[in-house]
């Protein structure tokens, strides 16, 4: 070896050695991890073999043989397990999406209530948060379900609201346009048009909140179009027919209880995020906005809320994920979500390992979708200059 390297050369040499060491360490860790996983997999296979438990995903194409109470698409007991799982997943999705929407709306309202200067309003907001955040979700669900099934009248004598809705132990039945799919299509088109127009107009005339105006106008347009279509084309109204209430669309007590329970529970946490976000905006921003002559409402909408949103969105994503995972509590109140269908399948065919893998994979992918979507929203919100 020649004379000792000096200066940059010496630094580069040390750097190379450092990198080499790091690569070696990480490589070793990877090998250990892979060996561990392979060992576990091999051991599982050996144990299944030794206990003579049949395994594999072939069962997915066998007929499931059991009925499911709530369907978004056709399914009968003769269909495959795969289709049964799809039904379970669609039910999980349905209650999760409905829950996320309602929880967000309630959460923002309650969060703003807590910030209010009116004593009673602020107190009501606090009471809401403390009650729903500090009692177990399971107990809330059971309470709501128990109240619904005990207090509502039998389906033979439902509470009728003007032949538009019937409320009973069979759940909530509402009148819908007889041509349901066409009505939804019309509503979608009108909603998009109205929303787009409102958004374009609002961007020109309003300082802030164009997106919100677009969404509100779109929803209102869609609802109006849907109602108009029903009025012109004719309604399918719920009617008591022997055991069942036929006609109309139906929300079961199980769905209602789960939806309400998840929304209330999560809304308390979202309210706290909204409040925390608003309080975290430096007080100087308030002062500056008011000094510029903005009203309190305008200051909130144009200055505080956009900045609060930035802080609130990452934790909001985990609240949404929690809501999706919490929907698996469905099983205690008889709502046929993915876990409930999984439980039934495990017992019909004994493929516990496979079914658990399926359930985990579905929840994982749903939450990854939420993570990606909320990541995109977050990127958009933080891109705006501070």
């Amino acid at each position, binding site marked *: 070896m020649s004379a000792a390297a000096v200066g940059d050369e010496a630094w580069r040499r040390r750097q190379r050695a450092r990198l080499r060491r790091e690569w070696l360490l990480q490589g070793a860790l990877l090998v250990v991890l892979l060996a561990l996983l392979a060992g576990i997999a091999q051991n599982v296979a050996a144990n299944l073999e030794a206990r003579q438990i049949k395994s594999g995903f072939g069962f997915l194409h066998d007929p499931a043989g059991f009925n499911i109470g709530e369907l978004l698409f056709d399914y009968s*007991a003769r269909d495959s397990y795969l289709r049964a799982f799809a039904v379970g997943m669609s039910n999980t999705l349905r209650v999760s999406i409905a829950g996320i929407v309602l929880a967000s709306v309630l959460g923002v309202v309650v969060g703003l209530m807590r910030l209010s200067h009116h004593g009673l309003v602020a107190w009501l907001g606090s009471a809401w948060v403390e009650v729903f955040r500090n009692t177990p979700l399971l107990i809330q669900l059971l309470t709501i379900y128990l109240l619904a099934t005990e207090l509502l009248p039998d389906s033979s004598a439902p509470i009728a609201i003007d032949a538009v809705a019937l409320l009973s132990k069979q759940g909530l039945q509402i009148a819908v346009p007889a041509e349901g799919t066409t009505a939804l299509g019309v509503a979608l088109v009108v909603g998009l048009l109205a929303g787009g127009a409102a958004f374009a107009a609002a961007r020109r005339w309003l300082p802030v909140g164009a997106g919100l105006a677009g969404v509100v106008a779109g929803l209102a347009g869609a609802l109006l179009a849907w109602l108009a279509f029903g009025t012109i084309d004719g309604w399918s109204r719920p009617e008591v027919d022997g055991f069942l209430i036929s006609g109309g669309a139906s929300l079961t007590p199980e769905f209602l209880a789960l939806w309400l329970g998840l929304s209330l529970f999560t809304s308390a946490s979202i309210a706290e995020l909204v409040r925390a976000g608003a309080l975290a905006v430096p007080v100087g921003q308030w002062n500056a906005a008011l000094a510029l002559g903005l009203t309190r409402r305008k200051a909130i909408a144009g200055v505080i809320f956009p900045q609060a949103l930035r802080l609130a969105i990452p934790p909001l994503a985990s609240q949404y994920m929690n809501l999706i995972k919490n929907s698996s509590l469905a099983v205690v109140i*008889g709502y046929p979500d993915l876990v409930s269908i999984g439980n039934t399948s495990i017992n019909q065919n004994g493929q516990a390992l496979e079914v658990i893998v399926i359930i985990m994979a579905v929840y994982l992918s749903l939450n990854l979708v939420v993570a990606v979507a909320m990541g995109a929203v977050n990127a958009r919100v933080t891109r705006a200059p501070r």
Partner: protein
Amino acid sequence: MRSKHLTTAAMTLAGLALATAAHAGKTLDAVKARGQVVCGVNTSGPGFSSADSQGKWSGLDVDFCRAVAAAVLKDADKVKYVPLNSQQRFASLQAGEIDVLSRNSTWTLSRDASLGVVFTGINYYDGQGFMVPKKLKIDNVNKLNGATVCVQAGTTSEKNVADYFGAHGMKYKSVVFDTAEAITSAFFAGRCQVYTTDMSDLAGARSKAPKPDDYLVLPQVISKEPLGASVRRGDDEWFEIVRWTQFALLEAEENGLTQANVDQQKSTSKDPGVQRFLGVNEDMGKLLGLDSEWAYRIVKQVGNYGESFERNLGSKSPLNLPRGANNLWTKGGLMYAPPIR
């Protein structure tokens, strides 16, 4: 309950992942070393297994666990009861958490052949039926078209009701709960018009109703539900012990041996069959890996099958179910034990 059975499932998973390969023929040794038979029972099945306010278990399935303990450990009280719901039961047995599953479970081909468990016999011939509130004025299953039906998750009932309604071109809506308690409270609250499960369970549920007389169990039976105990596959020695415990209960009744007269019969009976059964002059127990008095202890400590039935399900119980198909073959029933010789 949900978290509980998911825990069981997760434990099964972990157990399968971490356990060393299962070995055959070790359950008897493990039970003797532990000094306890770990028996999986129903969380709440009136007449089959239920715990009273002091935590004392009773029922036909519980008596079966006690009989196994009497035969193996010489003391019917050396049983640890593990209450399981219907989804947990087989996973729990597979994972080795229990030695015997005695939890009114239906013996079917698919369970026998694919779950890694094997049924040891039949201790109750049951069938699936329907219960409805009397005020609906329904007296026949074929008038149930369109009804909302409460059913327990992961039971043969769930599948049978789909088969039956499908075959008869009738429609229904199912509401599926994972525990019997959740179903009965929903049913009695009026969420469903119909509750379907095994006839014996219906009788038990009805006895717990706020007003039992408001409910009617329809006479039609739509399926065969032979209920029995099961053990893990691959341990033939233990399988034989559990199976012959059931036969001993039946054999005792057929020979007229009861808890009350077994001591006297043991010393005075001249019947070679009885003498052999009670281990007076022949040791049948050692063939099973037990001692000569295994069957004597079963009768002495638990009683014969008929006594257990009457005590838990029959005339001496609130359920007051008739013996019916569960009578001995000599009395017009289906209960038949191969000879102990």
